[in-house]
């Protein structure tokens, strides 16, 4: 792997141990994946989590004098000012959250605390070389936008932010962006929930390969649809790049999606029945619920509006907490537009800067929660809260009744 004299100097520690550690990370990845060199990146995004491992790495770099040359936007942990009004955490949990914010501030990160940067807080353009971690953000920026990012860990993306470069391998190179397998879809795609279930099916089939989707009916996915699709394809599998024929920018035709390679026979046909069967395997739980949690990935303003429309003036059951986790800008906009106040009158609360997988939600554990996101259900179950899954309208009706039938 070729390193410039300046890169070698950084690797030798001439610019401090923080930059040295970051360069060691990029160099190790470059060697492992046979990169010929490092290339500059214009944007970075770090899946900060408020977990010890990730915070340790940021502190290690910052205490070694590193500052980001391409400042990353960041994922959320949780809004410690607002949520501590409602829920208890231990002093250790609170301290870790505080340390995380402090370390990322010091390294020069842009604290967007938003997990869908490609949608609105750090939007790359077509063909741009970037380093984005967050499993749902990577397929979005590659597939829906046509920017170029590998599947990064939070720590390799932070290293890229510090150095301003990333190893040139994988999805930065044309040939690796082509489709590997074809999936036919013959299903009615009504709302982002359906795109999420489709993503869950596709991830299972594709694993870490690049799927090409060919739709029988005309579909017009929007930002939330692409986001849900990619989030779930990267939960059940490790999809980082996909094509939708006639829809996504690198697939104007099926020939373009496969980049001139022979077009394979379809590996699978996904029908409405396939989606319904997949949903059935994910939604077994019923009964009394204590929580409805929306916003994994973070809700947009238009999704918040849809919640209000579906409630149609009715109120959440007294025994249920109803939380929307939104992009901070959308939450502020909802406040300014009084959408937030109107929803609060119905028993619906919203919070920005916050992830579903955080200690502030532990008081709900042990009882059934409800969400519109398979990814939310998957990660919350690991923390000891079983979750049921319904489309948004089903979540709203169950919240009003206090139970899921």
């Amino acid at each position, binding site marked *: 792997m070729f390193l410039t004299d300046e890169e070698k100097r950084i690797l030798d520690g001439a610019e401090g141990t923080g930059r040295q550690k970051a360069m060691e*990370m990029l160099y190790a990845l470059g060697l492992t*994946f046979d990169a010929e060199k490092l290339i500059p990146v214009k944007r970075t995004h770090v899946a900060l*989590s408020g977990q010890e491992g990730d915070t340790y*790495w940021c502190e290690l770099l910052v205490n070694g004098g590193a500052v980001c040359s391409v400042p990353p936007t960041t994922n959320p942990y949780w809004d410690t000012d607002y949520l501590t009004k409602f829920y208890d955490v231990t002093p250790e949990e609170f301290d870790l959250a505080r340390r995380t914010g402090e370390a990322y501030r010091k390294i020069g990160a842009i604290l967007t605390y938003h997990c869908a940067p490609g949608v609105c807080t750090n939007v790359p353009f077509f063909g741009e070389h970037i380093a984005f971690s967050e499993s749902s953000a990577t397929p979005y920026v590659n597939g829906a936008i046509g920017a170029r990012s590998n599947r990064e860990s939070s*720590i390799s993306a932070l290293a890229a932010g510090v150095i301003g470069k990333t190893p040139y391998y994988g999805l930065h190179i044309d040939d690796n962006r082509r489709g590997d397998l074809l999936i036919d879809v013959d299903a009615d795609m009504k709302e982002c929930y359906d795109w999420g279930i489709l993503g869950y099916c596709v991830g299972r089939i594709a694993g870490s390969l690049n799927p090409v989707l060919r739709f029988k009916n005309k579909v017009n996915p929007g930002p939330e649809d692409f986001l849900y699709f990619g989030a779930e394809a990267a939960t059940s599998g490790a999809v980082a790049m996909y094509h939708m024929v006639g829809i996504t920018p690198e697939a104007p035709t099926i020939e373009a999606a496969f980049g001139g390679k022979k077009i394979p026979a379809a590996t699978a046909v996904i029908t409405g029945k396939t989606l319904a069967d997949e949903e059935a395997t994910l939604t077994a739980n019923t009964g009394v619920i204590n929580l409805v949690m929306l916003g994994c990935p973070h809700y947009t303003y238009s999704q918040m509006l849809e919640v209000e429309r579906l409630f149609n003036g009715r109120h959440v059951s007294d025994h249920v907490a109803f939380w929307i986790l939104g992009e901070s800008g959308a939450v502020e906009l909802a406040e300014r537009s009084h959408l937030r106040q109107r929803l609060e009158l119905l028993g619906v609360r919203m919070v920005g800067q916050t992830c579903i997988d955080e200690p502030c939600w532990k008081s709900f554990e042990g009882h059934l929660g409800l969400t519109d996101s398979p990814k939310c259900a998957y990660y919350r179950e690991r923390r000891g809260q079983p979750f049921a899954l319904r489309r948004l309208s089903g979540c709203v009706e169950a919240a009003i009744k206090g139970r899921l039938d």
Partner: protein
Amino acid sequence: MADEMKVYKCRGIVKGGGSGEAIVSADAMCFYLTDPQTGTVIERGHAIQGRSIANKILVLKSGKGSSVVQVDGFYQLWVKNNLPKAIILRDTEPVIVSSAVMVGCPMVDRMEGDPYEEIKDGDYVEVDADKGEIRVRTK
């Protein structure tokens, strides 16, 4: 004894090395789903669920899981001294590589021969990432 050991070439990814008893996982792993206190795999339905990877030589299919939990999984095992002595990977992916780099867990891939054929649970294995060598003594 050294002369009974079979030697295989491999590629070093994270430098260093270690020796010990082999544990072979046919599945990819998310290290977040191990108990840091013991190194025991707690993921339901996993190929080595209920068994400890602590201080062993782990033969592993690949990494899996979100872009940040893998990092924390490695970190928690590291601070409790319960990481594997070394990891022999079959399918290499960036998130597990960067996690191992951060904590300095010796890691190799591209073993000459299929690691699942050449190494069985309980074999004594020496991994030398610097020399690019794996030595195996059958149990």
